[in-house]
């Protein structure tokens, strides 16, 4: 009996690998975010946060995170479009598929994890109470190919505030 069970397991594993070999890359985005942005627009929600995101009227956002996003967008052949708003507005937009990415000095214990997925922490800073802040960006939930591409990019950077 055990032999049969392992046969099933190996068949499943083989099937998975076969699918992987047939041109579907794993992971794949259920909503196709990564495919959509390449050669097109990356919609980025921005909210001001010290040196991480600086917003000045009439100018593109500046600071650590906008710079990172510009470099990432270039790496996937996308053009960032900046949409300013409060964290609440941006989180709701992200949840409803109207944004691809949200930045604003967010940390990995952000309460918006109910609305969004997040990248791996890619930088660490210390707040004024001396507590460590692990910085993340917010992405749409379940867009795993897009997230993986962003994670790969961010983890290669040496970000020091």
């Amino acid at each position, binding site marked *: 009996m*055990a032999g049969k*069970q*392992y046969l*099933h*397991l190996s068949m*499943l*594993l083989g099937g*998975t690998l076969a*699918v992987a070999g047939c041109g*579907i890359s*794993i*992971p*794949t*985005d*259920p909503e196709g975010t990564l495919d959509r942005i390449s050669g097109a627009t990356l919609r980025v929600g921005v909210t001001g946060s010290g040196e991480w995101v600086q917003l000045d009227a009439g100018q593109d956002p500046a600071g650590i995170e906008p710079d990172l996003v510009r470099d990432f967008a270039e790496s996937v052949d996308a053009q960032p479009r900046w949409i300013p708003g409060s964290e609440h507005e941006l989180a709701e937009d992200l949840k409803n598929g109207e944004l691809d990415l949200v930045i604003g000095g967010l940390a990995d214990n952000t309460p918006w994890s109910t609305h969004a*997925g*997040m*990248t*791996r922490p890619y930088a660490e800073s210390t707040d004024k109470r001396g507590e460590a802040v692990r910085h993340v960006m917010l*992405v*749409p*939930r*379940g*867009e*795993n190919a897009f*997230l*993986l591409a962003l*994670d*790969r990019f961010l*983890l*290669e950077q040496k970000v020091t505030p």
Partner: protein
Amino acid sequence: MSKPAQETPDTRKAPRFGHTELPDEQEKALRRAKKFEWITLAFLVFSTALVFAVLGNSQAMKAAWIEDLLSFLPPIAFLVATRVIQRRPSEAHPYGFHRSVGIAHLVAAVALVVMGAYLLVDSGIGLLSAEHPTIGAVQLFGQTFWLGWLMMAAMLITAGPPVYLGRVKMKLAEKLHDKVLYADADMNKADWMTALAAAVGVAGIGVGLWWADPVAALIISLSILRDGVRNLSGAVRGLMDARARTYDDAEADPLTDIIDRYLQELDWVAEARSRIRDEGHVFHVESFIVPKGGRLPPLECLEEAREGCIDLDWKVQDMVLIPVAELPEEFLPGVAAAGGAR
């Protein structure tokens, strides 16, 4: 009615369930069962730690992890119960401590039902609200890759060993007539399906089918809930003194018939019927005997009959014989319909 105490310093250390000394075969099975339960616990520590490390946002992985955590209960219940039931009956506990097995069984069953129901609702909400599970990158040995691969690997690594443990423990459960061990072995044997379901769920996320994950979680919760309900009904039936059943609850234990037949074949017995309750490992037997000619036999005959029954099976030790003028319907339901002897 009681056997003269045969306590010597040597036998006091022999493995026993209450005042039942275990025959060699059962003693060996008990030792092996304890060893394998410790191995199970060691494996569970490894697998829960491994799965926790790669848990991520997958609902199916969460369900599989909770099932792993719940799998700690039956081995712990078994190990605690086998310790407790070694104690001899005392004045305060004239029936011994056998029921500790039933209590442990009930507690484990309730935990399974509660967690199964919780996970079922949680996964159902996840499916209905179309929450897309988010799984990103992981860094390991200087490589950055998708965490989903690690999740699937963890599930496939932890799928195999419980099946083996379950098969070994199943055989021991039969020898020891231990229903907690049986429930544990049964859950272990089915554990590969949980692992496979979780791996399929994560693979589904991988190919962009977000719903594969909550669906896999639903399947796992249903299996936990099913285990819980089955164990709960078994545990309750045991504590309610239902008719003794075989170790896997598949059928009525044949011992009732064997004892009745043995007693009926004694030359001074006209009719005999027993009621038996399962105390966990050992049976409490009450046998009603109608002597031939309506006359009480000499006490030696009763004593001999009792010894004979005890020699039939190691599970029989706590036994009373009740000579009666006719089989009492109120204590032996169904006796009239069956016309006395079966």
